[in-house]
């Protein structure tokens, strides 16, 4: 109940400010452009004589949807810190943190309410790629399985990004600092596995992006799900600890 109150207020304030509209607009345009680029590449390769012998291996899932999901995750890495930066930093700046933490609420309620509100906005964002893929389904015949698992992967990776953004926001009263800090953490988790093998090395496993690959291929592996769920949980725990300990200092 309390979680819902925070959630509702947070979601309303997204749409009361320009943030939600700008993020949704920019994301719809960017995801549209990328979709167009991948689709155009695919269509051109259909008529390219170099591909004529393995044309049956040219399918929409491999050449459009899979790289498209990969690109979307990069766009999300840049946009999610923008939607999370104000969550707690602004409460501090407006002194409303004092209202929240002198109310009969638990810190857990606040953390979850805010997380869910951002996650909800993020789900709205993901509607746009879905529209493009539905069109693909109407005019082509992509395999629906990898689309669904890819979406699951995006939801999970988005939740992880949001938990990092929420944590950064809980450390400061400055929104810009919060956004920059979450970029920093996310980029770190991105490049950490760049030079190592995703299957066998520790760094490869820690890297946040390596785990998305399986989902876009249509493979839902337990280790990937566990990775994202535990990453998100850890981010939320850190947020909780940051908020709870702050007033004890």
């Amino acid at each position: 109940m309390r979680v819902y109150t925070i959630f509702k207020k947070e979601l309303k304030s997204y749409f009361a400010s320009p943030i939600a509209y700008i993020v949704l607009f920019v994301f719809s345009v960017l995801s549209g452009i990328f979709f167009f680029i991948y689709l155009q590449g695919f269509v051109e390769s259909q008529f390219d004589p170099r591909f004529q012998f393995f044309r049956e291996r040219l399918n929409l899932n491999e050449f459009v949807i899979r790289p498209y999901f990969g690109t979307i995750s990069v766009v999300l890495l840049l946009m999610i810190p923008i939607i999370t930066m104000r969550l707690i930093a602004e409460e501090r700046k407006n002194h409303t943190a004092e209202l929240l933490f002198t109310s009969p609420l638990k810190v857990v309620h606040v953390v979850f309410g805010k997380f869910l509100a951002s996650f909800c906005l993020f789900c709205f964002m993901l509607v746009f790629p879905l529209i493009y893929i539905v069109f693909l389904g109407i005019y082509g015949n992509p395999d629906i399985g990898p689309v669904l698992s890819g979406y699951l992967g995006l939801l999970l990776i988005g939740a992880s990004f949001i938990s990092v953004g929420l944590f950064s926001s809980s450390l400061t009263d400055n929104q810009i600092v919060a956004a920059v800090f979450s970029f920093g953490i996310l980029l770190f988790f991105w490049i950490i596995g760049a030079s190592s093998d995703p299957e066998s090395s520790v760094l490869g496993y820690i890297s946040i992006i390596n785990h998305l690959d399986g989902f876009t291929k249509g493979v839902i592996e337990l280790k990937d799900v566990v990775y994202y769920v535990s990453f998100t949980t850890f981010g939320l725990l850190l947020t909780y600890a940051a908020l709870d300990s702050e007033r004890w200092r």
Partner: protein
Amino acid sequence: MIRVQNLTKRYGERIAVNGISFEVQHGEILGFLGPNGAGKTTTMRIITGYMPPTEGMVEIDGFDIVEEPIEAKKRIGYLPENPPLYNDMTVESYLDFVADIKGVSRNEKRENIEFTLERCGLAEVRRRLIGNLSKGFKQRVGIAQALVNNPSVLVLDEPTIGLDPKQIIEIRHLIKSLAGERTVILSTHILPEVTMICTRVVIINEGKIVLEESLERLSGKVEGAQSILLRVSRGGEDIRDRILSIRGVVDVDEGSSGEFIVRSGDGIDIREELAKTVVESGCGLLELRPLTHTLEEVFLKVISTEGG
């Protein structure tokens, strides 16, 4: 009822609040005074459960703020130094939100919101965005926010700051009318405000209580005895002796131009007798007034003696 016992708050080396104890009963309005940085806001934040104390304890209607924060916080209405407002909400939806997070039940909510809107004079701006309101209205929304859960304990940190004189009077009336069924703590810089609203005063300085007194007894507190200022147009040696001969007069100081400061013993009212004596002596009574100590004088005196 608020019970504060041996409250201490340390920030590393610095001690912000140092072993404060006091109680506020039902229906009392306690004025919480002190110079800037004395620890008023810290104390209020601890009382409302925003931050925990390093040592000591706070009880709100019998609930310990650290042990049972949820039960205790349900009973508190708190107006912080900076009113906690969401500028992108309307007054009404803001109060609705606050009522929700304070756990006001569904059937009481509507009624409470209407009541606070009415009491704080916000009915006309209920559908406006808080961000567009004037400072006075914002302050009132802050007070409304503290009242919306119908709390039995009200903690107000400088409630009249930033208001114009008319609004200040309105808010003071409001606070006064709210007491009775509630326990109120109020911090302020404006000393006359305390004289007007409060029933009791606690003055703190450098984290310690330097004075705790009911307001009636405050005036006589510093001097212990009464002093009266007397001014006459034609002085003379004999007038001094005449005054000294009045029963109860302890001491007379003579100024340069017909002023006398007459001190009397404890609890004896010499004014009537004094006036009669002076008039009968025919030296032209110009002025006669008791030198009571204003709260300002008391305040400065306690702060400087204890502090230095």
